[in-house]
């Protein structure tokens, strides 16, 4: 299962003085969905082009399915389906004709191509529109046709460059579901590049964060969070409300309460906004904290542990990047 499908070793690509990709080393396992995350101009597209042998490298080597991509681009392109950013179709042809053309470029016999094309178009949900001209397709349909385009050659690897750009939220959701379903069904390795954090978070097994041509971090999202937020590993969010029914003791003021909470030795950080508290700590202190609040005569309306998302990771990296 740990078979490597894509191996990039010390890849460097320069445009004049500008270093687009700087000494990148990355490997992606077979059957994995890998997210390449980074802002515009981070070198994601250049990396992808080098995977297909469409650009000359300054340094390093790229292997896809064990084939050197710069030496044998044709062999690689037989196994890799690539959906370029903002893909274009021949508008005066129908969706089916566009697809058949690609099938013929892949040397699939015409009879089989027709069969495959209908099947793939049904897979992506375009079976009703396949005889319409692509010029009349909506953005989402074009993107799905692009996916059909990639799938018809029966690839081992799919590379998607910003595939959800310009889709509406519902379209994005459907598109991502489609990718995950197809990838799991056929065991296809997927490399997914995007600058949308949440989309990557939804579908990818592993993520690589890419800034200014460098891979800053890679791994599963949870382990990335652990790496990054080690100083404040736990953050609790609480909502409190004064309990007016308890007559034995008059409730403490908020200030007194916050003072008490700060008194707990694990607490390192405390933010108060009226009834909303955010507590940062080294350990999980939710039990001690709730006990303290209830004993102080307050009710706990909610308590939640904050999960770090990709969003936070992303911003954290940008902070690091801009500080240095």
């Amino acid at each position, binding site marked *: 299962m740990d078979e490597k499908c894509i191996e990039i070793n010390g890849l460097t690509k320069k445009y004049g003085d500008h270093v687009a990709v700087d000494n990148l080393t990355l490997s992606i396992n077979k059957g994995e969905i890998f997210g390449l995350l980074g802002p515009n101009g981070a070198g994601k597209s250049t990396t992808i082009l080098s995977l297909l042998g469409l650009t000359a490298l300054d340094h390093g080597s790229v292997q896809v399915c064990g084939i050197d991509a710069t030496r044998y681009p044709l062999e690689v392109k037989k196994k890799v389906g690539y959906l*370029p950013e903002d893909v274009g179709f021949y508008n005066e042809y129908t969706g089916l004709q566009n697809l058949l053309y690609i099938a013929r470029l892949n040397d699939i016999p015409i009879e089989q191509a027709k069969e495959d094309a209908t099947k793939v178009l049904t897979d992506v949900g375009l079976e009703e529109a396949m005889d319409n001209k692509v010029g009349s397709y909506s953005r989402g349909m074009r993107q799905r046709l692009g996916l059909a385009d990639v799938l018809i050659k029966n690839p081992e690897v799919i590379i998607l460059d910003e595939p959800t750009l310009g889709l509406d939220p519902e379209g994005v959701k459907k598109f991502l579901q489609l990718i995950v379903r197809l990838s799991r069904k056929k065991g296809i390795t997927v490399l997914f590049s995007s600058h949308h954090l949440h989309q990557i978070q939804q579908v990818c097994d592993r993520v690589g964060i890419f800034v200014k041509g460098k891979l800053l971090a890679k791994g599963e999202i949870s382990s990335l969070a652990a790496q990054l937020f080690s100083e404040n590993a736990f953050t609790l969010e609480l909502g409190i409300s004064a309990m007016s029914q308890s007559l034995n003791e008059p409730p403490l003021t908020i200030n007194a309460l916050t003072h008490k909470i700060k008194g707990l030795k694990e607490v390192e950080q405390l933010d108060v906004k009226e009834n909303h508290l955010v507590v940062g700590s080294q350990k999980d202190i939710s039990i001690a904290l709730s006990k303290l609040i209830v004993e102080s005569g307050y009710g706990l309306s909610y308590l939640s542990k904050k999960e770090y998302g990709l969003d936070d990771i992303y911003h954290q990296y940008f902070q690091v990047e801009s500080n240095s």
Partner: protein
Amino acid sequence: MKSKTLLTEATKSTSFKILGWLTKLRSISFPKKIGTEKEPTIPWGPFKAMVQKEIGDHIRNWRFIILFSIIALACTGTLFATLSDGMKALVTDNSEHSFFFLNLFTKSNGALPPFFVFVGFLGPLFGIGLGFDAISSEQQKGTLSRVLAQPIPRDSILNAKFIAGIIVIGLMLFSLSFLVMGIGLIAVGIPPTAEEFMRIMVYTVLSIVYVSFWLNLSILFSVRFRQPATSALLGIAVWLFFTIFYPLIVNLIIKGYEPSKYASSQALFFYKQLKFYLVQIIPNELFDEITSAILTPSVRSLGPLTMEQIHGAIPSSLPLGQSVLLVWPQITGLLALTLLCFLLSYLIFMKREIRSRG
């Protein structure tokens, strides 16, 4: 390092091509072996698909339909004018040496220019029209990166565009030539001689070379410039330059060398020769010379001749082989220009990094 990897891709694809040609040749000469020999490395099927698509695109394109109808109308117009007016004169005139069918291509009644002028004039426009957005429009539509992501060598895109263009041009010019011959045949009832037929065929093939020069030039512009409008304008500008401005410039230059009335014959000869050589680099002139030598068998020389050279010559028409020999340098020059344009666009295209719509 960069160019090295590029070169490997380029050389590999050319070696593919040579291999492909070899197998093609072999399959032509040993037809039995076709079924048994299979070379999986040569992507002929995809290449065929690309050529077919390009031809289909050209033929369905309004640009092609309009240009083709203009040329066809102009040519048949001249043909009818020639036939209605001067038919009798053409047929009766010196039946021994007149080449009636060639006259259909070169003579007119004066109201409309003859056939060959139309081909020489509109052919370049046709070539430019077919090629000016060959690569740039694909890049703008974002289809180029999509096609390049398929397992085809990069140069086959350019080759397919070129081959498809030549096929379409050949189709058009051959059908026009046959149309003219057919109408002439019906109108007059005299079949063309083998010599005439061969001359017309040679002329048609060479006019395909001429139009494909302009096709290649405009493909070169379309590779170099991102905007189709830029490459179209540039193509037309080059065409205008060669048809109008370059002759004007040449006139200016040779004005300065114009010998006086009492100049020696040597000075006169030099003057004529200068005039001849200055126009030899422009494709229009090359084609004009080819046309006149091929379609007018009595033309014996294109440049100036001295009295000694003419001395003893029999005033008769040349056989086809001699006519071709006469314009051999021009044919070579035209082919060289065509190949040069193709080579340049090939070089630029192979080195280019293709990004979507970039």
